[in-house]
């Protein structure tokens, strides 16, 4: 079957998904797309403009990288009938709806694989109390604390759940903290929220305003640094792009002297030179030479909060109206926040051996991956000398900071943990279980409810605006 681009619709003429934003109300032109031609961007439909309409005489044009031929000029397309309604959460057989409640399924994980964990579920202080110390869970590792300026942490409460607000422009952290655990593979989770009393569309203005993890060599030189820095694509290393990153595997025992002195580069492992001949890749691309780099990863696409906005979910579903209420936190007096976004940041790294056609590779690959709310926001592949002398000791600095930029962004801390797994396969399972558990632990904030969320009552299906809900809920109905 042919593929057609119709106005703002991508119509596949198959019985597959069709995504549309609105009804067709006016006659539009229609063009046949060469099936051998692949669009640069599959959402080519939005690029349709008058300038892309081919003339009668022309045979083809190239629209947004896709070859388009005129199917017929003067052809109009008119909508017939109306879109039908989406399904609801439930329908009923009787005259009244039953009461239906919703919550996150209970989950927990074994913390024995963790090295440390900072959590807020055990806060005993009252809302409004201030401190400068976030102490680790003593059941896992005692005596570890992230500290900052006086009163930089304020106990905050929302829907019965307590957590910390980190004051603006402040940070908490620890320096020269020594790890002595297996580090491959390893993972860290940071659960935090950003909010603003007034509407804002950009809660992040730059990278690494939240989490900084620095590993230092034995000599004290920084070997991996994701500290905040205004990025200059021509001069800066990719490592600075990571808003959140974790690479505790690195140590002076298995990186070159040059790398120790100059910082470790990240490279595009998918570079066309790389699979063919690793040595050529090294020499021609000069990725790890003193001459700079020209094969950088593209800057990570930062995930906007606009898709993860919890703020407009009605606070109370007892009344199925479209009235939005802000997120209410309590610090002694209720503070409404028009925006409130909860982020589950998942950082993990694992070593990967070169593939079979890279037998000459002088390096193994360390994958460093960051996911935000389940979506990959950053990946890097770091080359590591293969003759590794694994060491379980490494000094590091940890810093969690609130650099709000403009707009007075508030930052809230919920959970921060670090762990290791037996192997990559088990790490995948461990991470999934931990993420599920963190979702359950923070269900009250996730659902904006201190109890099970009522979704229907006797009269109506209470509207749960799925498009405004947290992506973790994965629930869509009208």
């Amino acid at each position, binding site marked *: 079957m042919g593929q057609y681009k119709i106005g703002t619709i991508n119509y596949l003429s198959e019985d597959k998904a069709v995504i549309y934003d609105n009804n067709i109300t006016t006659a539009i032109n229609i063009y046949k797309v060469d099936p051998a031609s692949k669009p640069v961007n599959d959402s080519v439909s939005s690029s349709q403009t008058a300038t892309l309409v081919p003339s009668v005489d022309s045979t083809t044009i190239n629209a947004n990288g896709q070859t388009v031929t005129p199917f017929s000029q003067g052809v109009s397309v008119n909508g017939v009938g109306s879109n039908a309604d989406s399904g609801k*959460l439930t329908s009923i057989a009787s005259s009244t709806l039953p009461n239906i409640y919703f919550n996150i399924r209970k989950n927990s994980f074994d913390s024995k694989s963790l090295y440390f964990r900072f959590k807020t579920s055990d806060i005993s202080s009252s809302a409004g109390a201030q401190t400068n110390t976030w102490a680790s869970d003593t059941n896992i590792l005692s005596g570890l604390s992230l500290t900052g300026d006086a009163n930089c942490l304020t106990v905050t409460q929302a829907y019965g759940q307590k957590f910390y607000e980190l004051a603006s422009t402040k940070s908490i952290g620890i320096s020269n903290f020594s790890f002595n655990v297996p580090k491959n593979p390893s993972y860290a989770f940071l659960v935090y929220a950003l909010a603003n009393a007034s509407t804002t569309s950009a809660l992040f203005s730059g990278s690494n305003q939240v989490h900084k993890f620095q590993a230092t060599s034995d000599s004290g030189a920084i070997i991996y640094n994701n500290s905040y820095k205004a990025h200059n694509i021509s001069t800066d290393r990719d490592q600075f792009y990571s808003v959140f990153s974790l690479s505790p595997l690195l140590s002076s025992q298995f990186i070159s002297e040059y790398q120790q002195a100059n910082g470790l580069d990240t490279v595009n492992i998918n570079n066309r030179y790389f699979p063919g001949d690793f040595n050529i890749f090294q020499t021609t691309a000069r990725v790890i030479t003193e001459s700079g780099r020209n094969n950088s990863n593209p800057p990570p696409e930062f995930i906007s909060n606009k898709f993860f906005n919890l703020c407009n979910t009605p606070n109370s579903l007892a009344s199925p109206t479209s009235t939005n209420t802000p997120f209410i936190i309590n610090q002694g007096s209720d503070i409404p926040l028009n925006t409130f976004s909860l982020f589950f940041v998942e950082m993990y790294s694992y070593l990967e051996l070169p593939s079979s056609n890279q037998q000459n590779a002088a390096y193994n690959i360390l994958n460093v991956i960051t996911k935000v709310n389940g979506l990959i926001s950053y990946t890097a592949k770091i080359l590591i000398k293969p003759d590794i002398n694994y060491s379980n000791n490494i000094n590091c600095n940890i810093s969690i900071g609130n650099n709000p930029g403009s707009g007075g962004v508030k930052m809230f801390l919920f959970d921060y943990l670090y762990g290791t797994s037996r192997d990559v396969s088990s790490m995948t399972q461990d991470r999934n279980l931990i993420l599920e558990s963190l979702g359950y632990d923070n269900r009250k904030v996730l659902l904006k409810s201190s109890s*099970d969320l009522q979704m229907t009552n006797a009269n109506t299906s209470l509207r749960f605006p799925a498009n405004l809900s947290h992506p973790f809920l994965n629930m869509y109905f009208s």
Partner: protein
Amino acid sequence: MSTYLTGVSLGQVPTGFGGYTGVIIQNSGNFPVQYTINISNTTFDASVTPTTAAGGLLYDTIFISDSLDYLDPNQKQITKIINCNQSGSFYILHSPFRTFNLSTDRSQGQEYAAVTIGSQSNIGDSDSNLTINVTGNRITGFPIPKKLGKFYAVKNYSKIDASPSLVFYWSCINNLDYYTGFKLELSTDSSFTSPIINYEYVNQNADGPFPLYGAYDGFKNENHSVTKTNLSFNQNYYARIQAVNVTGGTGEYTYATGYDYDYPILDDATYSGNHASPGENLKITPTILYLNYLSNAESDFDLFESLYKLNGDSADFRKYSGINVKFSPSDNSIGNAIYKSSVVSKGAINFIPRSDIQMAFNTGVGGIFRLELEFENVNLYGYGGEGVKVRGDGDFSAATNGGPIFKFDDVKYNDTSDSLNTRTMQYYVYKDLDSLFYAGIGGGQGLLITDETNKGFSIPINGSEIKTINHINLKNP
């Protein structure tokens, strides 16, 4: 025999209920010896008239036996051969009656018998006889029973009468404890002011060779149980028990512990019967029924039918205050399990009780029956509506709506025992982050393509049928 003792008390024997004491013979000589033990007839003091006492069955109440395994009150002689430097034993026992009788001529007073032990070695030497005079004081009253132990109740449910029950267990844990029955009290108040059950349970024992009401060591280690049915849910119950003797004398109370399962491991207080008054509240609360459902693919899943079959083809859930069903993939995968609806009138999960079967259930906290559905790594898809069918200009079939994720009935129930209250079911849906809940999207608008330069040429394009959706689809539902 080289040692002769006289005037030795053989220990207290609780006459009237039977008792025994052992006698050890030590052969300290250099050759084997044959010992012949004889016992006289029992004689009674002047206050007793054996021919009339105990219905004429009062005779030879003191007797001997070679062992405790087999007792013959008519046995008059025992012969034992004991090698040198070895010992042997026999028992002197007391059996007050041959048949129990509570008649007024129950005997009192002293009774006597003489046990004579003769000896002859295998080389022909014989020694003079040793005589043991046995004296007993006949009963003048029954002993007070001792405190019972291991008293607990197991909560149960009878589907036949649709009511809960309590199965009580208790044991005699003390030596030389004698009783003729038990008094079990079951009360709805902790002070036992008006117990609803004031139960007498008599332990019958008419076995002739044994003394009445127990073995020679009393009733130690004897276990008893009784079941009380037709009780009520959510009712406070307290129970205590005491052993009683034949004249109504009662022992110390023992207060009950409650368990939800058979063969519990008893704590120390329960084992020893030392729970303080009033013991544990034995209230029987309807419980949640937990079920697992493993499947990777379902279509129009009928939850009612599934629960009906799992409950033994019964819709009687009055034992339960709720049901928890955990749905998960049969292969423990993520993303593979898809439960979907095939028609718009049904959901991916349906709970509609059958019209021909009355569903009965109980309630728990909040006065409702909880139907809890937990989803782990399961995708629920509602039915996707069909798009507009375009046949020509102005000739089309309208698009149809998408279907729901769930189809739940509003289930209510009036139980005969609870006629004033309508019992209501509520639904609780719990999902993990990996599970997806997608309602069916409505069918899309159709299109009609018309060549404006050459009228009559038109292409109908049917509306879309949506198989998958995301939040964009539901922006303006």
